[in-house]
């Protein structure tokens, strides 16, 4: 684990002054600190996953970036200068609470949103056409949103975030409630957008997705960014894991080995966690002493495990 006592101890942005910078943003609701000196950097073309329990402050920070909510202190910078209202109009946003006009036609609705975000009428037409085709909902252009299936409403919602050709994407739980095919579409859109140099920040509880899609991950807890970096960077501080398949071993065989903790065991497989510096060959010898060993392999902890670790560490701390 990287140091987690101070939210500002983050790996520096690859190119400071380019992309999005969040500096010490604080927001208080009564006695609750929803955002506690939160800081983030987001480089052009970078995908940042924003993970944390419900109520950790993810949505609060996103709403502050969008200007939907005002922060008590701190700054949101775009390309090194405080973001303006005109700048914010060029962000693509998907709020956690999905919402569109239920009785407005899909095409009209997207056209209206594109215009509100500053596109000319003809540019808006072109863009609406492009996104309806891209998301496979072109034949619903004239339908009222409320008449669409939930999956197609989600596609319209994504189109609403993309239709004005945003220079930054901020998506709050974009994958929640999506069917597997829509998850693939969403993933592809995020990748393509990032590939065009647009920074993308999204929150999610689906950590495998985050691990797969993101260049970097920020873990949030109680209004603070407690860890941030690439998944590998997050892993670097954590304990090494060994997966051992020893059919002859009795439960508890590994108890008492120095620097070793049983992480998980089921059937013939045991997962051990080794403190830094522990000799894995000693563990192998102990395993062989129980009988045959079918496999003996190191394992990288998943993001989900890292996340649980970070969160539980905070709870016990």
């Amino acid at each position, binding site marked *: 684990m990287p140091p987690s006592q101070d939210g500002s101890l983050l790996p520096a942005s690859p190119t400071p002054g380019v992309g999005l910078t969040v500096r010490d943003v604080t927001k208080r*609701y009564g006695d609750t600190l929803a955002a506690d000196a939160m800081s983030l950097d987001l480089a052009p073309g970078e995908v940042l996953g924003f993970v944390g329990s419900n109520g950790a402050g993810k949505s609060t920070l996103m*709403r502050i970036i*969008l*200007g*939907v*909510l*005002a922060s008590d202190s701190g700054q949101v910078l*775009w*390309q090194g200068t405080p*973001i*303006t*209202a*005109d*700048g*914010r*109009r*060029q*962000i693509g*946003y998907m*709020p956690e*609470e*999905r*919402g*569109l*006009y*239920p009785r*407005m036609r899909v095409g*009209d609705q997207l056209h*209206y*949103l594109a*215009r*509100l*975000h*500053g*596109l*000319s*009428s003809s*540019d808006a037409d072109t863009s609406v056409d492009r996104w309806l085709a891209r998301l496979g909902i072109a034949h619903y252009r004239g339908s009222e949103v409320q008449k669409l299936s939930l999956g197609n409403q989600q596609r319209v919602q994504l189109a*609403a975030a993309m239709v004005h*050709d945003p*220079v930054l994407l901020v998506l709050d739980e974009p994958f929640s409630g999506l069917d597997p095919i829509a998850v693939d579409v969403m993933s592809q859109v995020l990748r393509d957008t990032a590939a065009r140099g647009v920074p993308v920040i999204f929150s999610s509880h689906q950590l495998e997705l985050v691990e797969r899609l993101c260049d970097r991950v920020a873990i949030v807890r109680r209004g603070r960014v407690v860890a941030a970096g690439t998944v590998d960077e997050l892993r670097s501080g954590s304990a090494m894991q060994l997966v051992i398949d020893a059919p002859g071993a009795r439960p508890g065989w590994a108890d008492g080995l120095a620097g070793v903790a049983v992480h998980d065991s089921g059937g013939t497989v045991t997962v051990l966690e080794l403190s830094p510096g522990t000799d894995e060959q000693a563990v192998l010898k102990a395993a062989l002493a129980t009988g045959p060993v079918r496999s003996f392999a190191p394992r990288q902890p998943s993001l989900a495990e890292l996340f649980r670790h970070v969160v539980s560490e905070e709870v016990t701390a």
Partner: protein
Amino acid sequence: MTGTSSAAPGRFGPVWLVATREIRTRWESKAWRLITLVTLIAVVGFVVVMKLVSGGGPDATVGYVGGQAVGQQITASGKATGLEVETRKVSADAGRQQVRDGDLDALVRIDPRGVVHVTAKRELGSDVEAAVTALAQQTAIHEQVTKLGGDPATFERAVAAAHPQVTNLEPPRTFSPDQLALGVIAGVLIYLSLMMNGQIVAQGVVEEKSSRVVELLLAAVRPWQLMAGKVLGIGLLGLAQMVVIAGGGAIAAVATGVLTISIAATASVVVWLVVWFVLGFFAYALVFAAAGALVSRQEDVGGVVMPPLMLVILGYVIGVSVLPSDPANGVVRVLSWLPVFSPTLMPIRVAMGGVPAWELVLAVALIVLAIPGLIWVAARIYSNAVLRTGARVKVRDAFRPL
């Protein structure tokens, strides 16, 4: 940020975009078009009914036997008693038959002795009776004048020329039944329009909250722009609605000749109606928008719009219940200067006539001065409350930012 395709930027571009959407949405709504059409038909229909009832023909048809002079006398007696009588010269037998058939209300014959004989079907209507009684009395007077050696015609002229010299201590308040009708119609129209369009504003605000689209919108426009656009759009459409309904009614009234007051006076009533709609709508719509922002569900709209709505209703009720019988009522006069009641009371007073110019200037000035304050308060409440979903937001809390 680099904006390559920035259109309609600035502060008012987004306001106009929002307003345009509102206009389009209402215009495409079947319910809205139906209400406008039904109201227009009701107003024009009312005018036509008035025409049929009042100006549709004579009040009574009376046949007479004898010379043209008899007919003229009957007409004159009718006029003297407030009855428009159509006379028809008939033979005695044909006249009887027409009375029996109901074609004539009465048959009149003056015999050589000057006695007036009236034949009616079953009974004589009281208004016709008054007219023929006046006729009988006049015939008797003529008889006596002739007996005394005078000339009935000279006598009539002298009577007709006799007028009292009236001195008014205050300028007269010209006030005809037509103006009363016009006042009540103006009152009903402005009341219905404020009530309907005000609630459309509140429901529109709540629709955006309950569908959660408001957060998406506020990522692109400022809260005041969204509120102003909504009020502007609905207001412009309401204005068009008012112009169509009031203009349609006025044109129908002038075309059918139902109104005895001048076209200029009618036009002035319509213009003032539109002016008061604009002022009243913007004052009240801001309050309705702020009230709507406090709740998140359509079911709760009724509760929050009730207080401002009560003021609209109160003004209307005071206007149509007090003014027709007592146009000079001092309390109502003062109330009609206040921005809370002027939009509902002033159109009625203007339609009924006799409002001094300084009162109009005062009332318009007060509401125009009140509107910027309302904009400030409404924008503050709206901005702070519109993103708080769930329970109803207290007005006191809405004054503080989220």
